[in-house]
């Protein structure tokens, strides 16, 4: 007898789908040209390779933790592609594909995984402004769900200042249980903020299956609580994700307010490298979902369209592999983050005597001087 586990509930397939798992069109292909479709494919493949590399480097002890969303690439790409330059993208750690779609610099990504402070990474991996991501990006919310009210805020300010922009936020299905999710949607509803929230329902929140996360049939229906329209799509179908998100983005841009899209997919791996999914779930569902893999499916379609063949794919893998290796290498060359970095970017202007004193203490300590020798407020520099 196996270990006691929570039962999994396979989600209903009554969602919107355009591309079948077999790579057949079962709905209307969005009006996207072939070059862009190949870009989508490239981003999906690159995302999976990036995350693979992250996991390998974590195993080798280079990163302290790594993760990703293999099997969820269609969500990031499909939704990300629906944005315009200048729009806000509020990512989650799982939707790397959306970031790669918008060309976040890979070397900086690896720099962050190495534990460097962002200002340090930026300083050491300078970026030609022309190469900077064209959407506005926030750091992903470590406090799950906390970015939803923030996204309502960026959306509202764009609207009130009559900028033609929308805000898009990704959130895992687990994080929709946090009050923040409702706080943000409630505000966006009333204030008609141009906000699109994409719920990436991958069935699991670490060890909690979606059946234990909510009694609601779908996560999309959470929008009903706020009078916000919602759709539910096959999250492994990049066309379905794109079409629904694009419609939501267009409506938001046209002044029709917020919407919620649930993209149904599956977490094919452990939560991250610190987790061991086999403790709490069987692999019974994996095969079902492997047959629905978003990259496989898209490749079948692209192959049928004559856009892809094995030669192309091999060359692509090689190209991406080199790109990733180069990025890792650049990141590995970042010197150690100076200890003093921790004092940066707290307050603008004068941080006050006490704060500066603490900076001096650390500096003294690093210089091998006793940082505790100030007994009269006259400052340091005389230790040891």
């Amino acid at each position, binding site marked *: 007898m196996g270990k006691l586990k929570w039962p999994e509930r396979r989600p209903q397939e009554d969602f919107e789908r355009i591309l079948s798992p077999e790579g057949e069109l079962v709905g209307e292909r969005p009006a996207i040209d072939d070059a862009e479709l190949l870009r989508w494919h490239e981003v999906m493949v690159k995302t999976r390779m990036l995350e693979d590399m992250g996991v390998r480097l974590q195993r080798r002890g280079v990163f302290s933790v790594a993760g990703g969303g293999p099997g969820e690439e269609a969500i990031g790409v499909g939704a990300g592609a629906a944005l315009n330059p200048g729009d*806000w993208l509020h990512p989650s750690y799982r939707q790397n594909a959306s970031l790669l779609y918008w060309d976040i610099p890979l070397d900086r990504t690896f720099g962050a995984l190495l534990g460097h*402070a*962002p*200002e*340090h*990474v*930026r300083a050491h991996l300078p970026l030609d402004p022309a190469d900077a991501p064209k959407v*506005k990006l*926030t*750091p992903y*919310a*470590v*406090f799950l769900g*906390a*970015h*939803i*009210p*923030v*996204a*309502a*805020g*960026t*959306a*509202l*300010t*764009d609207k*009130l*200042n009559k900028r033609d922009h929308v*805000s898009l936020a990704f959130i895992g299905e687990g994080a929709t249980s946090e*009050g*923040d999710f*409702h*706080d*943000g949607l*409630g*505000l966006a509803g*009333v*204030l008609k903020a141009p906000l699109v929230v994409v719920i990436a329902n991958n069935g699991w929140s670490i060890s909690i299956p979606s059946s234990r996360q909510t009694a609601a049939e779908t996560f999309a229906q959470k929008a009903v609580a706020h009078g916000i329209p919602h759709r539910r799509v096959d999250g492994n179908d990049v066309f379905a994700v794109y079409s629904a998100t694009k419609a939501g983005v267009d409506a938001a841009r046209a002044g029709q307010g917020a919407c919620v899209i649930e993209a149904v997919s599956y977490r094919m791996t452990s939560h991250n490298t610190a987790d061991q999914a086999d403790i709490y779930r069987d692999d019974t569902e994996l095969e079902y979902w492997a047959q629905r893999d978003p990259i496989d499916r898209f490749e079948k379609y692209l192959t049928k369209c004559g856009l892809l063949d094995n030669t192309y794919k091999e060359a692509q893998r090689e190209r991406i592999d080199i790109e990733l290796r180069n990025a890792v290498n650049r990141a590995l060359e970042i010197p150690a983050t100076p200890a003093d970095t921790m004092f*940066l*970017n*707290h*307050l*603008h*202007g*004068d*941080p*006050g*005597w*006490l*704060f500066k004193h603490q900076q001096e203490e650390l500096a003294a300590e690093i210089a091998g001087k006793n940082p505790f020798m*100030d*007994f*009269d*407020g006259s400052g340091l520099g005389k230790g040891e």
Partner: protein
Amino acid sequence: MAESLNLVASINHTLRSELRKNERLRLVGYDIGPVGGMFRATENLFEEFGEDRIIDTPLTENGILGMAVGMAIAGDRPVVEMQFLGFMYNAWGQFIYHLANLHQKSGGAFKVPVTIRAVFGGGIKPLPFHSESTEAWFMHTPGIRVVCPSTPRQAKGLLLSALRCDDPVIFLEHAKLYRAFREEVPEEEYLLPLDKCRLVQEGSDLTLLTWGNMVHVSTEAVNKMDASIEIIDLVSLAPLDIEPILESVRKTGRCIIVHEARRTAGPGAELIALINEYALEWLKAPIKRVTGFDVAFPDTSTEEFYLPNVERITYALEAVLGFEF
């Protein structure tokens, strides 16, 4: 030109003048629109500036704070009204995670110029949790400024500075001071520094540290004493303007701290710790803390026994002045 205004009128006046000047300023909160705020701090602003500048919201403090952060990083300058400081406990996640931290966490990529106007303090006999004083928690939070005006004139200069500051500012408005007294408030603009304490009166025998409504209660107590007592209004709780405070204690050698907040791990503890660290040699007596007690803010029938009053402050002054090693 100057008008005689009480604290709440001064705040209203200041908000109005900055709303006129900076179209990126937007007020956010519930009950700030047509009704003009529970204390009328936003009176008539809705009519002048409309619903896109004075944004009446649903009842979600956490959502409001998070949304304000989003607005700020997108280029607006939101001013949140926290109807009572205690309700901010509901928004603690957004407060710590985004308001205080996004600037740092983004490595400086984003700034978060949000002002939180919060009604705080005791003495108006309201419901439970409507008299909170959580300065100590703010002091323990990096990435924010915390200021507390004690007069209408000062309030204008501080609030204007807060509204123009690139950092998140917690602006503490003492409920009891709203209509306590009037003061001439100049029509024209003036800025007061957010990080400087204010010498209320000079003295040589003892240093009294306080802020908010307790500035007035303390002054009353001091005025009844014979001794020469220096009163410092902290004004800025974070960062602490510690140098003049240490200077004063080195001069007087004696000190008491008066605050409404509970004593244990309260704001007074840090002041004593700093004096210990940097001015211990000058101390002629232990420092005493005149504070609220370590209890939940009590029911209205006993709140007067919780809050420091003239008598309690006098006792502390006498005790510390009379102490000899």
